[in-house]
């Protein structure tokens, strides 16, 4: 069971308090009607699903109820950082380079 730190509550809590929300930073298009079927399918379904660092959404559903984002390594399952919804996605490549050192 992962230990996840909530940037809103500022505490670490067991994974059971959280719900996973999939890949982060896949913003819903402002004008969906402007997208062709390919682009819409890309938004709906295509995911990077990387083996490595992933920016992902979590919701502290049984805590403060807030969504937030986290960067986690999908092999070690280690969290690199967490940040609030709306904040910018960290530079994953830079983080990966740091992690490798």
């Amino acid at each position, binding site marked *: 069971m*992962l*230990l996840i730190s909530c940037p809103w509550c500022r505490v670490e809590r067991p994974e059971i308090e959280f719900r996973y*929300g999939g890949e982060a930073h896949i913003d819903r298009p402002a004008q969906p009607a402007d997208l062709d*079927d390919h682009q819409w399918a890309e938004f709906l379904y295509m995911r990077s699903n990387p083996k490595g660092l992933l920016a992902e959404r979590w919701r502290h559903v049984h805590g403060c109820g807030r969504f937030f984002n986290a960067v986690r390594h999908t092999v070690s399952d280690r969290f690199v950082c967490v940040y609030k919804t709306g904040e910018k996605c960290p530079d994953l490549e830079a983080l990966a380079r740091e992690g490798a050192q």
Partner: protein
Amino acid sequence: MTQQNRTSEGGRIDRGTPVTFTFDGKRYQGFAGDTLASALLANDVHLVGRSFKYHRPRGIVTAGSEEPNALVGVARSRAKHASGEATPNLRATQVEIHDGLAAESQNRWPSLAFDIGAVNDKLSPLFVAGFYYKTFMWPKRFWNRVYEPFIRAAAGLGKAPTKPDTDTYANTYAHCDVLVAGGGPAGLAAALAAARSGARVILADEQAEFGGSLLHERGAEIDGKPAADWVTDAIGELGDNPRVTLLSRTTVFGYFNQNFLALAERVTDHLAEPDPALPRERMWQVRAKEVVLATGAIERPLVFPENDRPGVMMAEAGRIYANRYGVVPGKAIAVATACDSAWRAAFDIAEAGDTIAVIADLRAEPPAALVERAEALGIRVEPSCAVTGVIGKTRVTRVLLGRMSDTGVVPAGEVEADCLLMSGGWTPNVSLHSQARGKLDWQPHMGAFLPGDPVQAQRSAGSCRGVDGLAEVLADGARAGVAAATAAGHTGEAPVFTATGGDAGSGWWLGAVPHDRDASRVRAFVDFQNDVTAKDVKLAVREGMHSIEHIKRYTTTGMATDQGRLSNMNALSIASGALGNEIPQVGLTTFRQPYTPVTFGTLATTSRGDLFDPLRKTPIHDWAAEQGAAFEDVGLWKRAWYFPRGGEDMHDAVARECRTVRESVGLFDATTLGKIEIVGPDAAEFLNRIYTNPWTKLGVGKLRYGLMLNEAGFIMDDGVVGRLADDRFHVTTTTGGAPRVLAHMEDYLQTEWSDLNVWLTSTTEQWAVIAVQGPKAREAIAPLVDDIDLSGDAFPHMSLREGHVMGGVPCRLFRMSFTGEAGYEINVPPSRARAVWEAVWANVEKLGGCAYGTEAMHVLRAEKGYIIVGQETDGTVTPDDVGMSWAIGKKKPDFVGKRSLARPDLVAEGRKQMVGLLTKDGKTLLEEGAQVTVERSPARGTSALGHVTSSYQSPAAGRPIALAMIAGGRDRIGETLHVPMPNGGIAVEVVQPVFVDPEGSRLNA
């Protein structure tokens, strides 16, 4: 009751407390403090079980949790055994005896001594690794009828219990600064050091007593005290510290991410008459800031022919039995070793006055000090000497020796012995380190893998990381304990312990021992329980199984209940030889949880029966139960399904309930519907985006049916939404969908539209909902309503009012209908719901009405063609498919799911559409889920046009009615189609999906 192998004194058993138990029905005596294994050995019982494949007789090999052979079925009493309540496959070496305990040997029939299954041993030349993949293929039908049943019956070990377990299990979540796994010298030192630094410490050891190897370390001293006394003092100190939790009989069985560990504590199995309030076992789920692994080392067997015979055991086990339990496992004991530690076993036993027949050491030059001491004790010593076999089937009688030389092994005579102690050296116990994803480093000079750099906040200490010598181990433990406490934010200094004695010394052997026997006839076992021999490992390699993982799976080595704790290193060494590859290149198989098997009940903890899942009941539930209602599960809720009266079956009850609603009035508990209060200046805008419908213009005090899609454009939920104020809506959802819908809304609100000023609050349980439906609904509620004008003009269909009932009970009154009849839903506080319900009920009864359940509700709504999400829809259905294009706000630029509705397949011709079906004969009730086709008797493989989603006997229509999803259905209205059933097709007419009051005139009545 002889205990003929018991020493006259010594050991940690309580000689003043004899204990009587049975094994295979025979009564034996041991002492309090004995394990089943030590007590059996005290009675000179070595033969305790049969092996998995060959049904070879097997004895006790170890004295710990790594035991592969001595597996027994155990129950509190013989009666419990007989009634199918025994636990199979327990290790006799871990079972503590108590009065009445009943143990049975396994995998033998009719008896342990004479087992028919032992013919397998005779057939062993055929039953080599992987033999079943190569045969049993002809004749084909024999597999399921003959071969497989035979294989299944022969395999397995003990018998599963057949009676539900009446014991209870518990759980504790815990946090600590330092968790110490293993309470030997290293673990105790670590725990003392950490605790003295002020850390919160949990110390767990799987054994009944703390102390690990110190419990049998004769002669060792720590801080000037005998080791065992030092242990007592250490435990005393730790026990007095309120920040320390001591858990004996507790196995650290799983090491998960982020220092999350799982422990299994055995609470009562060792007690003859446990307090019934106590659980049998307890799971500890621990989040530790730091972990110290002090899990010791495990002695490795020697792989020589017939090394599996009862009487052959690990040298250290012999020493443990002698020193800790006061049991010498034989009258004449031979020792075969490649490691110094076994010599000390021989010395301890000899010093206790028993006969050591020989010490055969594979090494040419065992340490001189050991040889001298052996000679002083009058023990025969044979260097460069291999054991090449033993004589005796159910018990060793003689040991064969062979002299090792450059050219091979030559016979070197036999020795009379009824017990053989063996040692191939020590394997550091790195399981938990590995589970924690730590790598292992191969140490060629030690012939062992040691823990590499830890990946988690964890460190190993003591002999599990190859440290030898008591003083060194204590120092290592103290160092680890302080380091862990420091890392967890405390400060302290490593205590210094002085110690003498207690080291393993040097020397080791890996892989098969050379011998002079006929290789094609003899078998040297690597994995005892699964009957894997050195030859099997080589055969696997010959057949192309070059990965150690293939070798494991092909031979099953390491897959038995001991998970290869004794065998893996020998198997690896033999494989590496056969592959011509170095050991680290071949590598070990993966260590997985659990460290030792864990009871299902312990994992399930307290989840059971009514507490398995929360069981949600409405405030009306008890009333319904008192009326004899049948209930159905919907999500976590229990809902009243129907209310049978005097001998009615479900069908009759439902028909009556439906009729009553249409004719007079019915009362329905709709409390379980999800409710969300949506509040804020942007509430209407939020609803515009979440629902297909438009909301901006919905007036205050008005209701509207809302349809919700997922982003893929498929119907996800529906419900009635009421506007309480400009900025406040009362939303209802389906019962099962409530949590999902709220999560869906929060997701969009928080992550896509955080600019909207609106908030969502679940009010599902703030309101109980009493639906009153039928032509007399108004009559039924009118006397109770304090301050709401119920007249049709003042309060028309699809409107809502806030007010009071019954003289001051707050209420939100909805005028709405899910039945097609005029009706109300009275939302009242749950604390008063039953009172309100009973008051309405009194009126309803007077008016000739009834209470109705979910089944009647389903019929009533189907008569009106209202959908049930999850019944008419299945996650692949769009609004248009169910004829609800009207619910889509055409002018809205966007809402969740809108874009997807324009995808090619969602606008394609021939989609399934909801229609009604009437059976042509007017009598036959279709089965829900039945398929619909054009032909009456379609050929196998014909595509269906669709299926029946709902089907009921309709009291209102006076005939069966059905709803169905049919390809191009709306264009087929009027057509005759067929529902093919096993006994012939049923002709149906496609009709509009409304069977009662298509104009909706009754709603406004």
